Structure formats: structure tokens, C-alpha cells
């Protein structure tokens, strides 16, 4: 662990979130949030549903604008970029969506080839080899001619992962990569995330509410709640934390700082009060 911490300091952070606030309508999603994503590491961002994890990814990808604060990616402040600069930056980011977001009218091969065809003028033979190599990485070279609706959820996500890495990005953002998968597919995705990070050195941000899987593959983890950081540290440190917020989430307790009951007026009054008659 000390080795990781040392190299983290050497490389610095690829993504820096500084004092970011974000509102959706009148609801505050992120409240003065500051965090860093170390270069070349797997960072998990955990938290309950609707705590702003996905918004955070969209802020980093420039699909949302913060109402306040800076979102620095590789030294560039994302909200300040114009559309051309933003698209240049996005070519160096990959994103894996929750359900893969494969283009339904294209085959597996064409889906992986899509970013290359859009952004480069590679000869067909080179393109073919490149796509097959990426499909081999995720173990689906044999599925190249299938259409997206013929794939299982886990396979679709692996194809989407091949597509996300085909332009050799510097980082990948995973949005709930484990949701709705069977244990085997989950293991496959976890292994791939780890391998891509180790072999290609891709900085990875894993947004998940799956504590066990996310802890297993990440070097560092943040726990978000109510738009703030409730806890952070290596997965082992989070496991040993005594903070009630962290404990409730890590142990999956039904009641705690996040209450079991939705706010309501007094129960007895509600049942036997004036309106109850």
C-alpha cells in the first residue's frame, strides 16, 4: 500500500474536482465537493443511489456544467473548454455506460470500429486487426458478427469496454459496471477493469454501489452521500472505519444516518388525528 501512495504522489492526479457544486433544478446534487483521481490507479466512487455519483462522471466528461468550482482533467478545466476542445479531450476518455450503450443497428465488430471510423482514416486491414485485438482483450473475438440484441448483459458490457479502449484513452469511467450481472459476468468485468489498469496503465474511475466488488478492484475509494464525501481511503481503511456513515454503507444496515423511514409527521397523529376520522 505504501508503494501505491508513493507513486500516486509522483504522478499527481489526472482528475481534480475543486469546490464543485452542482444543482439539478432546485435539488443540490453535489455540495462543495473536492476530490482527486490519482493517475494510473483504480479509484472507486461509492455511494447510495442518487448521491451524485453519475453526475460526477458527467461533470468530468463535460456533459454537465457545475454551478461552481473547477473540474480539471489532465490540467484542463472542463467547463471552460469550447466544443472542439471538449471533443478533443473526450477522444482521450473512455466511458462505459451502465447498460453498454451499444449502437443497436451495428454489429459487434462495427460497434468497436465506430470510434476509429469516426475519428481516423485507417486502411480497412489495419482497422480490422485493431478491432480484433481489442475484442480478443475482452475475450469476444468470436462474437464479432453478432448484433447487440443477441448479447447477454455481461457480453454487451465487454463489447462496450472494447469500444471504450479502442482509441487508447488515458482514462476510463465505469458507470455502475456490476449492476444487473450474474456473478460470473461480474467477475469477468472486475478482472478486465483490473487488467486494463495494470497492463495499459489506464486511469480508472469506478462508480458503483457494489461495496464488495468495488473494494476488491480499487486502490482508493471515496464514499459519497448527500453531495459530500462521507469517507475516503484505501478499501481496507474504509472497512475499518468507525464513522457511522461509512459503517452503515459498508455493512448495508437498513437504519442509521440514512433513515429507514421517509420523513413524515407523527404516526399516531396521522392515524387518529383529525383527518383520520
Amino acid at each position, binding site marked *: 500500500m505504501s508503494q501505491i501512495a508513493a507513486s500516486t504522489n509522483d504522478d499527481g492526479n489526472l482528475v481534480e474536482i475543486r469546490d464543485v457544486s452542482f444543482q439539478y433544478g432546485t435539488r443540490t446534487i453535489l455540495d462543495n465537493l473536492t476530490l482527486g483521481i490519482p493517475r494510473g490507479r483504480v479509484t472507486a466512487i461509492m455511494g447510495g443511489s442518487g448521491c451524485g455519483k453519475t453526475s460526477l462522471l458527467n461533470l468530468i466528461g463535460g456533459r454537465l456544467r457545475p454551478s461552481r468550482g473547477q473540474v480539471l482533467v489532465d490540467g484542463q478545466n472542463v467547463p471552460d473548454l469550447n466544443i472542439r476542445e471538449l471533443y478533443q479531450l473526450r*477522444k482521450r476518455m473512455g466511458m462505459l*455506460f451502465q447498460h453498454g450503450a451499444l449502437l443497436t443497428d451495428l454489429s459487434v465488430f462495427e460497434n468497436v470500429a*465506430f470510434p476509429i471510423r469516426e475519428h481516423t482514416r485507417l486502411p480497412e486491414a489495419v482497422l480490422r486487426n485493431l478491432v480484433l485485438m481489442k475484442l480478443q482483450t475482452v475475450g469476444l473475438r468470436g462474437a464479432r458478427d453478432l448484433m447487440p440484441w443477441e448479447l447477454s448483459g455481461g457480453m454487451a458490457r465487454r463489447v462496450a469496454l472494447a469500444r471504450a479502449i479502442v482509441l487508447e484513452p488515458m482514462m476510463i469511467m465505469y458507470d455502475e459496471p456490476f449492476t444487473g450481472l450474474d456473478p460470473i459476468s461480474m467477475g469477468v468485468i472486475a478482472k478486465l477493469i483490473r487488467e486494463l489498469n495494470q497492463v495499459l496503465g489506464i486511469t480508472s474511475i469506478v462508480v458503483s454501489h457494489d461495496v464488495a466488488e468495488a473494494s476488491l478492484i480499487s486502490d482508493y475509494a471515496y464514499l459519497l452521500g448527500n453531495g459530500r464525501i462521507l469517507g475516503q481511503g484505501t478499501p481496507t481503511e474504509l472497512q475499518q472505519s468507525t464513522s457511522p456513515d461509512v459503517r452503515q454503507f459498508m455493512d448495508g444496515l437498513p437504519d442509521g444516518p440514512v433513515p429507514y423511514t421517509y420523513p413524515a409527521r407523527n404516526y399516531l397523529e396521522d392515524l387518529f388525528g383529525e383527518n383520520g376520522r
Partner: protein
Amino acid sequence: MKMFQSLGAAVLSTIERLGSAALFFFDILGNSWALVKRFYLVTQQVYAVGVFTLPIVLVSGLFVGMVLGLQGYNTLVKFGAAQSLGLLVALSLLRELGPVVTALLFAGRAGSALTAEIGLMKATEQLAGMEMMAVNPVMRVIAPRFLAGVISMPLLAAMFSAIGILGGHLVGVGLLGVDSGAFWSQMQNGVDFRDDVMNGVIKSVVFGVVVTWIAVFEGYDAVPNSEGVSRATNHTVVYSSLAVLGLDFIMTALMLGDV
């Protein structure tokens, strides 16, 4: 008081949507230039939008022409003018029924399909995925479909009119005994290229733009879930049908005004 409030809110939100639809229209036009180099994207969509609408257009055109033949004959024969049946059928189709009925069929068949397709792409994060791959979805997805609609509509209307005239000929000449030579020669003499044919073409181009614009906007603006997509599809058919009929009146008034 509540009523005025909700009325005001409805008006404001309508104006807001019209505004964003207008901005979206210019966004599409701005992104259409990039398709000159990649015209195959448009061709693919012409196939999807136009060719699949062709059967319904041809069948409807045939029947509308046949009905025109029957109705027209029954009226004209009272005045001893049954020889003019060809002219009546051709003018009705070219000036009015061809563009309008084709546009209504187009809205129902192609427009709803476009809205549903784009709405589902949005709901399944395909459009967001493209954005994150640094591909502009308006250029890659919307503009080709829009151009395909604008290209297909006049062609479909022309085919509707052509097969409708054949249908009128089938009934008038084949069943009711109108002279074939008179049928065609009356048509040839009476139909003016600029006033009749071109006016119909202009109408069909305008309808193509409006229907496709409504369809792609509704899809792109849909609430990204199944309920939102079905509502957007519904809106496409209703709004574009109303827009076609309203615009038809306005354009007819303008076109007849300067004859």
C-alpha cells in the same frame, strides 16, 4: 386564478419548446454540411425512411386514384363532361391529394418510426455514448435522418400521384368506358407544369421538412424512458398531421392568389 396560472405556464412552455425546436433546426442545418463528404449516411436513411414507406404510399395512391375516377365520373357525366376525367384526376392528385395524403402517411409510417428510434437511442444512452466518444449525435444520427426525410417526401408524393393517375385510368377507362385518348389528351392540355406540377412539388418539399423536423425533434427531446418515447411518438403523428393540414391551407391560398 389557478386557471390563469396554468394557462400562462402552458403558453410559456409551448413557446419555450418552439424556441428549442427552432434552435435544433438550425443545429441540424449547420451539421448537414459535414454530410456532403459522407453522403452514404444519408443514402442509408433514405432507404430506411423512404423505401419502407413506399408500399403503403403506392397502395394508398392506387385506391385514392380509383376513388377519384369513380366519384369524378359520376359528377362529370351529369354535365356531359366525362371526357375531362383525366384532367380532374390529375389536377386533384398533383395539386392536393398527392402531397397532403403522402405527408399524412409519411408522418404515420416514417415520422413515428424516426421518433421512436431516436427516442430509444436516447433512452438506452446511445446518444450520450456517442457524445462521450466525441461524435456529435446531431451530425451522425439526426442530420442524416432529417435530410433523408426531406429527400424522400417529394419522391414519394410524385409516385403517389403517378400511381393514382393510373388508378383513375383503370377505373375511368377500364370500367366506366371513358375514351383512353381523351383521358390522356385532356390531361396533357389542362395540366400546367409550373402552376400545377411545381406547386405540388413545393408543397411536398415543405411537408417533408416539417414532418421530419417534428419527428426528429420529438425523438431527440423525448423523456428518456418508455413512457416518454411512446408519448413523443404520439405527438409526432398528431402535430405533424395538424401542421400538414394547416400549412396546406396557407400554401394553397398563397398559390391560388397569384394565378
